[in-house]
């Protein structure tokens, strides 16, 4: 148990006290805000279905393994252990998928091994880029992202390289 577990509950308690002092109608306000979630999820669903189908097909067709094999030497060259190639490919698409891969790495190499530590840092410092972009765009008329995804991918790749170097020395 680390201190971080307490951050959110404490903040919410403080918020409730503050609201009580300002005499806000907590019950009604909370319920009214929560109502917004329904429309939000209706908007998100079609996009989620689309991206989930695409990811699932990509994975079971074996194309992920193929790309991983092709990219392994490149990864090795830029200093990312080649055992992590598949994780790096899945990470931008699927949170649960990459978490399952990380578990696999932990059980194969041991949680304290260099590879497992690299995997942990990569998991902790990156996001499911395509998923974020999909959900955020579901709310807008704008559909052309121009350079957003390449920028996010490059930034993540660079930070992953740095992560692997940091794991070597720290």
């Amino acid at each position: 148990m680390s201190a971080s577990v307490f951050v959110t509950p404490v903040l919410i308690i403080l918020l409730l006290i503050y609201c009580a002092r300002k005499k806000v109608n907590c019950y009604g306000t909370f319920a009214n805000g929560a109502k917004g979630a329904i429309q939000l999820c209706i908007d998100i669903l079609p996009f989620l279905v689309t991206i989930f189908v695409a990811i699932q097909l990509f994975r079971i067709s074996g194309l992920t393994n193929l790309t991983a094999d092709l990219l392994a030497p490149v990864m090795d060259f830029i200093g990312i252990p080649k055992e992590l190639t598949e994780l790096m490919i899945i990470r931008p698409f699927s949170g649960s998928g990459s978490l399952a891969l990380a578990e696999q790495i932990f059980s194969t190499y041991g949680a304290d091994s260099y590879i497992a530590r690299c995997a942990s840092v990569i998991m902790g410092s990156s996001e499911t880029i395509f998923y974020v972009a999909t959900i955020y765009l579901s709310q807008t008329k704008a559909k052309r992202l121009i350079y957003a995804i390449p920028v996010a991918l490059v930034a993540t790749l660079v930070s992953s390289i740095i992560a692997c170097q940091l794991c070597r020395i720290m």
Partner: protein
Amino acid sequence: MVLASLVTLLFVNPEDSINAMMNAGADAVNLTIKLLGIYAVWLGIIALVDACGLSEKIAALLDPVIDWLFGKTDSNTKKYIALNMSANILGMGNACTPTGLKAMQGLDKQNNYSLTASTAMIMLIVINATSIQLIPTTIIGLRQQYGSMSSSDIILPTIISTLVSTVLGVILVKICAKIHKKREISRKNRENLPKKRENK
């Protein structure tokens, strides 16, 4: 990507493809229902933050940063961007999305609902897609589960690397926005030149 996957599947194992698609659809629905609950709670809390006037205070605090990152925005959008960023930093991943989406709606309106995303919209997506989560609780828990002796020794490298990705992301967006703007201007100039001649 979908097409390539389907073609490969045709050779590898055709009967699985439809199954996989249906399962993925069901997974997406399951996730959405789960998210509905999570978003409902967070949107409720956000409504409280809003009602007691805290969100204006957070926005005022982050005002210079938001101005630099997103340019001119109206106060309502600014509020949601501020909430989104603070949720990001505090590692409340599930609170980020609903605030981010509200901010997106505001930015979309400012963008006159154009088909091309504005720089501010791209900035918001990149910041959220590079994650500024400070303490990776899920991963630490997972390492403990797999018998790690020092499950939290990854915190420092994670913080450094996540800062690198976010800062780099922000810088790259700034650079790309400038290049993009220049290109747009030169394109417009090219389009306008012949017209001007005709006018003369």
